[in-house]
């Protein structure tokens, strides 16, 4: 990671062997073909300490994860975590699995949150074993990719990355 200019990190979170749970990973992989090489794209399991590490030093971070809010599968949520706390429904039931939401909130308390942090949640339909996204979630992927690309370019402009 370069230190002399602001950096943008896109982190896809999930388990791609559990169907829609892998949507963050799937989007991260597809973004690789569409974003400039200097954008750091990371695939993560969601383990909290590794996430803290992944975004350390970054100025703009975009997190992508599956969500389970009980809405229609494929519903997309977008939070600006740099200005508002992550909704508690995103918080894990157990903190043995110290996860995304806890990592973000702990980071906020420790004043280590990246200046810009956007979290996307994509409502999953099935979390069974499997490597395919359900049709409803697959249907939402293109719009999330388009929106993330817009986020990345607006972050680049504001941080004057070429």
């Amino acid at each position: 990671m370069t230190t002399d200019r602001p950096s943008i990190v896109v982190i896809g979170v999930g388990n791609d062997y559990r169907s829609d749970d892998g949507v963050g990973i799937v989007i991260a992989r597809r973004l690789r073909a569409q974003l400039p090489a200097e954008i750091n794209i990371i695939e993560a399991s969601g383990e909290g300490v590794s996430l803290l590490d992944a975004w350390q030093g970054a100025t703009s971070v975009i997190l992508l994860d599956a969500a389970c809010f009980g809405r229609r599968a494929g519903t997309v949520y977008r939070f600006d975590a740099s200005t508002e706390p992550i909704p508690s429904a995103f918080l894990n039931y157990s903190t043995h699995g110290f996860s995304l939401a806890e990592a973000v909130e702990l980071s906020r308390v420790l004043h280590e949150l990246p200046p810009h942090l956007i979290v996307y949640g994509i409502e999953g339909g099935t979390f069974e074993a499997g490597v395919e996204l359900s049709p409803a979630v697959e249907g939402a992927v293109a719009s999330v990719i388009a929106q993330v690309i817009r986020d990345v370019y607006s972050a680049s402009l504001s941080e004057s990355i070429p």
Partner: protein
Amino acid sequence: MKSRAIKVDYLARVEGEGGLLIRMKGHQVSEVKVKIFEPPRFFEAFLRGRKFTEAPDITARICGICPVAYQMSSCHAMEDALGVKIPAPIRALRRLLYCGEWIESHALHVYLLHAPDFLGYEDAIRMATDHPTEVRRGLRLKKAGNAIVNLLGGREIHPINVRVGGFYKIPPKSEFLALAEELKWARDAALETVRWVATIPIPEFERDYEFVSLRHPDEYPFNEGRIVSNKGLDIAICDYEQHFAEEHVAHSNALHSTLKERGAYFVGPLARYSLNFDRLTPTAQEAARSAGLGSVCRNPFQGIIVRSVESLYACEEALRLIEQFEMPDKPYVEAEARLSTGFGCTEAPRGALYHRYRLDERGLIVDAKIVPPTSQNLKTIEADLLQLVPANMGMQKDRLQWRCEAAVRNYDPCISCATHFLKLHIEQE
């Protein structure tokens, strides 16, 4: 007589779904139930018919925080069944991997799950406002453990590099040496952790437990040894089922384990420490004494100190193993299928984890038995509460409830681990 109840629908800061119910009549406790309603997971059943080589990867999925323990116990059981002898360099690397898991698991429990209990915070996020230095230290310590598991296991959650007979691939020595610098920091941080937890106000409470853990002739136990207790038990791993039984209780989807002769017993850091104090490094022993511990610790609330001492030991042991790293000739030893039964028991962060497998001549699993630490401790947790509640009857109800929840978290219970083996009982009126 006045009746009251403490009811916690969902226990926080534990893995999996469990609740707690305590009923009191006057100053008597009439009922204590650690209710485990996490659904059963049937791992033992779906291991049947799978090849012996698959057990480490399948059982690792039982737990996200102690997958290494499942991999180690299953590998040792399979190697026992198939007569595989593990060369010293591979054995050393297994210890190193286990050090990584202990460090990450203990750091998580000490800093993020248990310290808030004693310092009066609802969770670690709130605690971090007032104790940022400590929380940062805990996170970095956990990361040092993650780094070992990541390097040798292939990734930090559900590592993929462990196989029966050894590892799929062993990274070059240079990559292990690269971990040493951070581990030296971690060793100092672990010592600092012991000093810090020694200053935390910890409730006084003691019981005359039967501690059970592995004991090895030379080492603080991870992978090998005899199963011993402070009340005379001293058996080979293969004799486990002659001495221990599992029973179903209606309020729990996890089985309860007992010693056939004496009932409830205690596994985990306190047991390991109390039975193996003399196997700790001098630094770890010294740190424990400075923190006010004797060579035996019977106060489960002091588990937070003992875990910190074990983290210090694990950092020192990891550094020693890296310094003495020797590349094995081959990353694994081949195992040939045969009709057999094998037994394995290793020390997961939460205590002894027992596996037994019966294999057919093709190496397919005929049946499997897995006894995780949490189900071995459930009876003891309930017995602690039976003593704790009457002794603190004068407390405000919310304070008493807080104390009871902390008492459960003394065991760092992993409910997800404990519910994978239930035989389904349907109760009909």
